[in-house]
């Protein structure tokens, strides 16, 4: 609820698929190459050129359909969406209208600790358009057709979201599923995921309000800003006694506002009709089942499991679950050691994440294994090495394939837990710090920390800090 209004949000997500070739021709599906070099007569829409459908695009869309609990229409077809624009060389986009590949699904997301089920109306396959380049210095726009024919899936949700936070969680979940399935690179900065947002507001108990559609939303945070802006704009209109009109608006993220593009009256008439250059798509039932069997446990399911089974916070659990490598590392470590879940999660959230961020590497590109991480955690837990020694070892084994016991020996990182050795250190420190000792005795208990610190320093960090503290305490009290 915002200012006494209920908010209704529906999202259309476009994701580029990471196939080798384009959807309707065998040009390379690649980003960022020199203008108009990844094109052929087919994706340039030359007279007489014809499309052929890439089977991987169908497979990937079916996988996403399974992941979002959709019905897979094993008999479906493609349609033409007709409109004129310089980035659309055929003046129609090959898409799906009447019968999409996947429909009637849902996605469970976790918002503020609560599970919410968002309906998925449909998922269909289509081709991307080219790009227009503009420059103030040049009196005209430049057309680069490299992106024409890059495969897309469009995922259309039901209007089931009630806040920008839910919309954000939905988008993040969709993104992590795409990555889990390894069907999209999900690079926001390259525009490989984009979304259109439908928003309306109404008073509780009243019928749904008129919706506006917002285009050109290029990041998830922009989606949140756009939704919040649009909700406030619509409430403002209603509060002033006005009426929200059905229209398409364009989100300008730099200005932080949406602007009207066109109203319902001059809405585009896309004149959809079946693509006559392509025949009906018929997919074997076995193929559909096989693709289903390839779907791993998905991040939204993992997220709920981590919170419920291991007591991780939603924030920590979603950080680990959204990335397939982090979550597999976590799952492998805790499989036989559920009690270590918190430590494992701490390591992944701090040291592992930090290393990956700094080096830009994925976990699979490092030498880290679940066994090694577990071993370090266990050594620390057993008091065999200190926390800081553990970090030193971690920094080595993530880069090199080295035996941990060897490293401990080489760098003499083993923790001193021998009571007589520790007592000797304690005696020495007590003798050299009379002032702190008397401070402690006069009730300044924080002097204890200083004394333990001095002992650690004297041991060059190798003393078992727990034992050290107990010994000092015994001596001071005694």
């Amino acid at each position, binding site marked *: 609820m915002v200012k006494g209004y209920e908010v209704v949000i529906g999202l259309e997500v476009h994701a580029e698929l990471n196939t080798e070739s384009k959807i309707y021709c065998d040009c390379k599906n690649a980003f960022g190459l020199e203008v108009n070099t990844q094109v052929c*007569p087919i994706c*340039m*829409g*030359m*007279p*007489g*050129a*014809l*499309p*052929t*459908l890439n089977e991987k695009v169908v497979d990937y869309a079916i996988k996403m359909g399974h992941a979002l609990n959709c019905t897979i229409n094993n008999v479906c077809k493609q349609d*033409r969406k*007709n409109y*004129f624009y*310089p980035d659309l*060389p*055929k*003046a*129609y986009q090959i898409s799906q209208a009447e019968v999409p590949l996947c429909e009637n699904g849902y996605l469970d997301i976790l918002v503020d600790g609560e599970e919410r089920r968002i309906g998925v109306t449909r998922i269909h396959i289509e081709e991307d358009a080219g790009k227009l380049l503009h420059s103030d210095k040049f009196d005209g726009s430049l*057309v680069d057709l490299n992106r024409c024919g890059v495969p897309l899936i469009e995922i259309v949700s039901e209007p089931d979201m009630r806040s920008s936070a839910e919309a954000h969680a939905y988008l993040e979940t969709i993104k992590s599923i795409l990555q889990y399935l390894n069907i999209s690179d999900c690079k926001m900065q390259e525009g490989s995921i984009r979304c259109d947002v439908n928003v309306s507001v109404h008073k509780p108990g009243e019928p749904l309000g008129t919706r506006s559609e917002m285009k050109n939303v290029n990041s998830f945070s922009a989606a949140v800003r756009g939704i919040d802006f649009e909700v406030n704009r619509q409430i403002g209109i209603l509060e002033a006694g006005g009426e929200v009109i059905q229209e398409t608006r364009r989100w300008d993220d730099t200005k932080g506002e949406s602007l009207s593009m066109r109203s319902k009256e001059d809405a585009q*008439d896309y*004149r*959809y*009709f*079946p693509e*006559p*250059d*392509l*025949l009906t798509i018929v997919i074997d039932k076995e193929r559909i089942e096989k693709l289903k069997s390839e779907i791993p446990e998905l991040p939204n399911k993992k997220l709920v499991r981590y919170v419920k089974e291991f007591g991780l916070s939603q924030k920590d659990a979603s950080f680990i679950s959204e990335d397939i490598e982090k979550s597999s590392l976590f799952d492998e470590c805790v499989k036989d050691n559920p009690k270590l879940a918190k430590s494992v999660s701490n390591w992944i959230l701090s040291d592992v994440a930090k290393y990956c961020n700094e080096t830009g590497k994925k976990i699979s590109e490092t030498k880290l294994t679940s066994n090694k991480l577990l071993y370090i955690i266990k050594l620390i837990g057993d008091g065999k090495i200190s926390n800081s020694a553990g970090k030193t070892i971690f920094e080595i084994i993530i880069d090199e394939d080295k035996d941990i016991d060897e490293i401990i020996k080489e760098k003499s990182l083993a923790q001193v837990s021998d009571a007589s050795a520790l007592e000797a250190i304690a005696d020495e420190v007590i003798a050299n710090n009379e002032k702190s000792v008397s401070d402690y005795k006069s009730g300044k208990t924080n002097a204890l920390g200083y004394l333990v610190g001095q002992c650690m320093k004297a041991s060059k960090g190798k003393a078992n800090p727990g034992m050290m503290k107990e010994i000092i305490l015994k001596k001071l009290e005694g």
Partner: protein
Amino acid sequence: MELYKNSAFELSQMIKDKQISSVEVTKSVFDRIDSVEEKVDAYVTLDKENALKKAEEVDKKIANGDRLSPLAGIPIGIKDNISTKGLRTTCSSKMLENYIPPFNATVIEKINNADMVITGKLNMDEFAMGSSTETSYFKKTKNPFDFERIPGGSSGGSAASVAAGEAVVSLGSDTGGSIRQPAAYCGVVGLKPTYGRVSRFGLVAFASSLDQIGPVGRTVKDVAMLQSVISGHDKYDATSSSTDVSDYLENLKSDVKGLRIGISKEYFSDGIDSNVKDAVYNAVKILEQNGASVKEISLPSTNYALSAYYIISSAEASSNLARYDGVKYGYRAKEFDSLIDMYEKTRSEGFGDEVKRRILLGTFVLSSGFFDAYYKKAKLVQRRVSAEFNEVFKDVDVVCTPTVPSTAFKIGENINNPLKMYATDICTVTINIAGLPAMSIPCGYDDKGLPIGLQLVGNKFCEQTLLNTANAYENIIGGFKSPLL
């Protein structure tokens, strides 16, 4: 030697036996072009230089003793909507006046691999929309039987050039009768193959679900030979079929014993000229006398087919022709003050009236609020038409009809009456709607001496049956007549 008068079959034997060379045949055809093209106007673009070069190559290969395809060295004309790499492909439109394709249509690759000699590009109705070749931006092709009359269309250049000896054989395209109707008007043989039999890759699309490339020749044998060259699956055309292709010449028969012919009253209504009716009935009688059986059949949805055809073909055309916007290729208006201004001026100046009519009709039947009543209904009617033919072909092998209700009309006679022009397609469009193969062969002349066409319709992928029937008829009557120019 007037080699241009010979059939491709005869010429190929003579070339194989080294009695003549491909260069001699090619020169003879170009000499013929020099003498009659002024009157016929069949070509948009001639390519004599490359044709002679190719002919020399073929002669060298023959001298080397290479094994060549049966049609090696035979001159062929190509309809100007089939993409030829490096040779302009205009669709007889101002829009593509200077368009030079960077690639070859699959059929052109096949023609090249068969070592045929391409003479040039043949005139047609603009973007294949028309029944008279009068909508060409460049010229009006004349009927070689009477220069005051149209050659038919849209493949008017393909039929007229072959009839006049300006090409030995040619390729046309047929969306609603565009090969068969001009073949009938010009007294030659034309075949529209089953939809999917010949690759459409590189054929500039008019109506994608109906278009099909096919051969035109002066004899059935020539058409059979050329059909063998161009048939087959193409992985670059998703609608092309992988059904086996036979060698149509090798398997060509010349008797019709046991052939079951169907006659449908829907094709002999009051709108059919009595000369035409008589000639078609007579041809059927000849086949019957030679061993075929004749049966009355019914195709009740025929009456809807013309409507379904104009709706479906125009809808697809409105989308297929949207790409001509002055951005990537083709004509662009000289002056404009915005993107939309450029689009509208370019398209209004680049397209002729008939193309505009089809685009407008097609846009209308797809537009919001009208789609279900027009386009969708037409597609559903299409299924009914197909189903009726499926039933019929359980009982008969070939359906015989007139190709066109009357003989060739005068230039200008119907140009301002689209409905009258469209009505000439009544016998042919149904076949495209059903995706079937059909041929037109000459079956007589009217009282003005103009040729009449017999249409033979077969079941899907039964081109051989049609060719056999046509071949038998040609043999029985002792061959077809050429016009005197």
